[in-house]
């Protein structure tokens, strides 16, 4: 086999694999659409926004299907978690990359990797038996937006930290040398040279963390309280889209089941919108030195 035919084969295989992975996503979205269709046509999209509450039933006439508080629950928990975990994760990566001695940095990274590997149900159980009673002492019931945000923060912190760390590692060595030659202090180098240079990597890190927070289910079901009402504060219970699907799917029939797929559809749409925003943002302002 000549070299070029080997290359051609490789290209064909890679293209095939790319098509397959792309198709998987398309199929998932199509499946969710098809399954959500009965609810969208019987109940109608407007009722998902205007009904009195979320008390779904298999027949659209007896159930109420307001998804707004649930969508708000997903957005609130995950956005707040990202607001907390984003800066912490970036600072953690700055520490590992520019401040910690090499040996400590190695152990530190391993620790963060370990944190990323803890299954979500373990975080959830810890949240339910330790965190929730603690929050309960401040303000009952304990299952709350706050507990959910804390758990999600812990879960996405390693995602942000590790990806940011990788983004820093991928920067050209010339940046660090140039900064040193200019006599810049370590903090100036980290915060005014490296972070702006790695901006698109940082955006990806935060994005992935946000998407993970939105998709998180088990831990959230255990600590958030899952009441489908507009959250009235940090100590009020919230319900997320994923929690709704997990709690009700086993028992749902007819349009109720279909409405749960509509929840999934909303989640897909929200995630897509966020990803598009980040993509567009990074096109408009390419990182320095690229």
């Amino acid at each position, binding site marked *: 086999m000549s070299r070029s035919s080997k290359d051609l084969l490789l290209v064909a295989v890679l293209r095939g694999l790319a098509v397959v992975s792309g198709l998987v996503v398309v199929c998932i979205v199509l499946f969710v659409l098809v399954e959500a269709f009965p609810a969208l046509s019987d109940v109608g999209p407007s009722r998902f926004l205007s009904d009195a*509450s*979320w*008390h*779904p039933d298999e027949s659209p006439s007896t159930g*109420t299907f307001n998804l707004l508080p649930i969508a708000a629950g997903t957005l609130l928990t995950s956005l707040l978690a990202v607001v907390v975990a984003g800066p912490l994760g970036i600072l953690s990566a700055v520490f590992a990359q520019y401040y910690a001695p090499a040996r400590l940095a190695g152990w530190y990274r391993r620790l963060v990797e370990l944190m990323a590997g803890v299954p979500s149900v373990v975080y959830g159980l810890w949240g*339910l*038996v330790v965190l*929730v*009673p603690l929050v*309960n002492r401040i303000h*009952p*019931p*304990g*299952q709350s937006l706050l507990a959910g945000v804390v758990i999600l923060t812990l879960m996405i912190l390693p995602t942000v930290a590790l990806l940011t760390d990788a983004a820093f590692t991928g920067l050209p060595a010339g940046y660090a040398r140039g900064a040193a030659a200019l006599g810049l202090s370590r903090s100036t180098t980290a915060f005014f040279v490296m972070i702006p240079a790695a901006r698109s990597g940082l955006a990806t890190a935060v994005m992935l963390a946000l998407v993970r927070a939105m998709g998180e289910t088990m831990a959230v*079901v*255990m600590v958030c*309280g*899952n*009441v*489908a009402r507009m959250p009235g504060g940090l100590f009020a*219970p919230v*319900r997320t889209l994923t929690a709704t699907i*997990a*709690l*009700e*799917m*086993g*028992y*749902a*029939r007819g349009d*109720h*089941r279909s409405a749960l797929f509509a929840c999934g559809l909303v989640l897909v749409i929200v995630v897509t919108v966020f990803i598009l925003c980040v993509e567009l943002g990074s096109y408009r302002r390419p990182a320095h030195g690229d």
Partner: protein
Amino acid sequence: MYSRDGVCSIRLPLLLSLCLAGCGQSGPAPNSNSPDVLVLKQNPVHPQITVTGASTIAPLMNEIAKRFELQHPELRIDVQTGGSSRGVTDSRNGLSDIGMVSRSLKPDESDLQRFPLARDGVCLIVHSDNPVTSLTDEQVVSIYQGKTRNWKDVGGPDQPITVVNKAEGRSTLEVFAGHFKLPTNEIQADVVIGDNEQGVKTVAGNLQSIGYVSIGTAEFNRDAGVPIKLLPLAGIEASVKTVNDGTFPMSRTLHLVTKSKPTGIVHELIEFATSSKVHDLVKELSFVPIE
């Protein structure tokens, strides 16, 4: 989690039957001479039993069916949900061989043969340090409607009540709401939970909370040292025993029904499902076996 669309078919026997057909053999087909009790669809050689009805019973029936099929590899059991009423209608007009009914049978349904499968009891639980030892039905309703919001109004300490409710569609919610004649959309919950274990953990971790779970789960956890207390209802102690003898009010019997006296393999399946051979499955799904 229970199968998504509420329909479970065990496909292995079908594959097996295809293999056998490929070998030019007609596989074993006991009772194929009594087609009146067998719904023979799709595959004329191998018997299939269709079971439809209450979604409460379906997960249990699924497990029982799996175990029964191990003993009868040629058999295929199709468990479908659709509510107790569907269980009654389907078995009446022959669409299914066995119906599953999670409520008590109505007088006009006395034409059906009934077989008690298990009992399902639900009890209220509070934290074991909660001084309240009993609540009247009116107090429970008032708490769950959000009218009573402090334990001091029902003889407890001056603390807000955390109302723990089940997610929409759960059978425990159905039993609870049915017993107290409380529409589910009037319940003002502080915490909504999924399964019984989560309910027990939630109440055990919150001194001010009140919840309801399957009696089997509650008793098991209390005996294992989890700090929860089972509240009596109308003066009757909440226990597996009182559910079993039918005195505990918030409970119901889960039935299998057939149109006529079952024969052949259907009879065998019903015998098996109501025997002590499946008591472990009954307990696993937090129902109470009938002794």
